């Protein structure tokens, strides 16, 4: 059977199953599942604000899922995307606030470059430890996320504090234009989309992509044909970091307009989730990110407009995700095919 039809079928059946399990929960607390699901859809898509909100939460996920996948292609399990988002964000904020001697368009570009550079350097640490000392990058990146959080938290409640009730920085002087107001979706969406398309192109069409794939699938072979696994591993971790940093920069310049303490909580892990569900396939990852963004804003919508408590909404979201991870419907099809063949 056609692969595309098959995957669509899989997705639809997965959704149905998840919806059915979710419905049980909703019935259990005595609400109407249809109404709740209606609210979920409305929450994600009804009107400019909701669509905008969905797109706004889609934007960073696009980049963080891509960041995770890029590292995974080289064989790294980069849990540290979240920390990279934080550091990218704080750098963008620092530059955006202080380097006002630059003309706005240049400043904007410098913000991006700075954010990506700092985040890439941050990712360099676990990469080097792994490549040269075989220190597990999973361990180091989990720990480094907390470090990144505390560093940024220190900066915005200390040296970079805006002096208001919250731990946040002064506003940046350049902003990515927002559209679909009042939601905070902004030009970052397009930057992210273009970046992801570019990354797909890089990994599939360029020499670098070939090298990454080689290192990720067989480092020993890579070394033998003259591709340095260490170098490529480090480069893709840094690339991954840069993508995370870019997400942070977009959040600061596009969404908040300043650095807000702990703003990236969950952005890294959700991106990682999106990427993992599709087994780090860069082409599917954006769709999964979108699905997660829809779930997220739909869940908020459900809370906003029905009596379904947030815990139920979150439970249903989790069930959706668990079901989505399973490839069972694929398997089901394969088995059936085989049976038909052997007959």
């Amino acid at each position: 059977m056609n692969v595309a039809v098959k995957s669509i079928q899989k997705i639809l059946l997965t959704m149905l199953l998840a919806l059915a399990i979710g419905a049980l929960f909703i019935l259990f607390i005595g609400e109407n599942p249809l109404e709740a699901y209606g609210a979920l859809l409305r929450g994600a898509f009804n009107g400019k604000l909701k669509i905008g909100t969905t797109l706004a939460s889609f934007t960073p996920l696009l980049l963080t899922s891509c960041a995770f996948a890029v590292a995974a292609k080289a064989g790294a399990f980069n849990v540290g995307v979240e920390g990279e988002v934080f550091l990218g964000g704080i750098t963008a904020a620092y530059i955006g606030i202080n380097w006002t001697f630059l003309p706005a368009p240049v400043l904007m570009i410098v913000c991006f470059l700075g954010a990506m550079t700092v985040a890439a350097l941050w990712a360099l640490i676990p990469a080097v430890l792994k490549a040269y000392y075989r220190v597990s990058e999973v361990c180091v990146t989990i720990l480094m996320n907390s470090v990144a959080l505390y560093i940024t938290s220190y900066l915005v409640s200390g040296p970079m504090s805006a002096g208001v009730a919250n731990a946040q920085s002064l506003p940046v002087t350049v902003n990515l234009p927002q559209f679909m107001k009042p939601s905070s979706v902004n030009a970052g969406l397009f930057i992210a989309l273009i970046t992801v398309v570019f990354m797909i192109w890089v990994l599939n069409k360029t020499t670098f992509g070939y090298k990454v794939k080689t290192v990720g699938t067989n480092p020993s072979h890579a070394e033998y044909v003259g591709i340095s696994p260490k170098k490529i591993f480090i480069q893709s971790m840094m690339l991954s970091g840069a993508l995370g940093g870019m997400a942070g920069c977009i959040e600061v310049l596009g969404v908040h307009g300043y650095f807000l303490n702990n703003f990236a909580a969950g952005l890294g892990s959700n991106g990682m989730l999106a990427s993992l569900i599709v087994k780090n396939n860069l082409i599917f990852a954006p769709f999964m990110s979108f699905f997660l963004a829809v779930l997220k804003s739909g869940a908020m919508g459900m809370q906003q407009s029905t009596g379904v408590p947030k815990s139920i909404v979150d439970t249903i979201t989790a069930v959706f995700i668990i079901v989505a991870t399973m490839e069972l419907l694929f398997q089901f099809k394969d088995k059936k095919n085989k049976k038909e063949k052997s007959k």
Partner: protein
Amino acid sequence: AKEAGKTVEATAGTTAKAASENGDGKEKTGAGKRVCIVYSGNLGDKSYNDSCNEGAKEAAADYGVEIKNLEGTSAEEWEANFLSACEDGYDLVICSSSNFEEYMKEHCASYPNVKFAIIDTTVEGDNIVSISFAQNQGSFLAGAAAAMFTQKTDIEGVNPDKIIGWVGGMDIPVLHDFFTGYEQGAKYIDPDIKVLQSFAGTWNDPLKGKELTLAQFDQGADIVMNVASGTGPGILEGAKEAGKYAIGVDLNQDNDQPGSILTSMVKRVDTACYLAIQSVVEGTFKGNSTSYLTIKEEGVGLTDFSVMKEHLGDKFPEDIVEKVKELEEKIVSGEIVVENYTGFGANK
């Protein structure tokens, strides 16, 4: 730089208690009014957010207004919830914490028909009322009480060291406003008192709070003030477990670990919330007004020590209660000026 001499609303003088007395016997004038409260966290922290929710519930009971609570744990959710509340035609949107400050500045003007209230900070706007608290004053009393208590060596668990503790949640400016008052209060009683300060770095890890509290006890403190929202229950439990003492915050937490909590520094978030709803129901809502609830307005203060009194019996040091009363008066009269952390205070 804000202009000085801003009006401190007199209406704030009414406390929630007084207000609810007024409310009694009234018909539900607020029926049909819809109020949305957006939280920067979840309900159930037994502290700040719950206090706010309590005020809302009281108002709902008194006026029959419809309340919608929107919880959110990330900045993204806060903004989305806030905007959704703006759009969904509520009469009043209450932003429960300073986390909403920027969103209000950005969006409130676009919704001239919606009334907004923000608690714990000040935002200007024709359709906004702001209510904040002199947490430094309340903390001053708590610090004074703690400083006296730590020297009552006849009470079990109290050591002769002149050391008291303070554990906060996240290290953010508003918490430093608490600490400033707390330290000042302690030193006022005895300049030799040493105040230990720790931050858990999180609002919702009671175990971390407990660990920090136990560490402060190890270092000689015997009473620790909790300013940590969801991290707080751990602080209180730590006191109980170590056989030492704690001071609660926001809500009256004296009964959470009875016998281990000297008093609670109550911050009447419930009053603030109640007042905001009341003003909308009664039509007294006046945009661009700021209320700064101090001891005078009973916006902050200590609980009446009754739980502790019951627990300690004869050993209960009555002088603390008296001293606290005295200090209260001195603060109200202006004899004692409690310092603020930069960026806080009535004229902020």
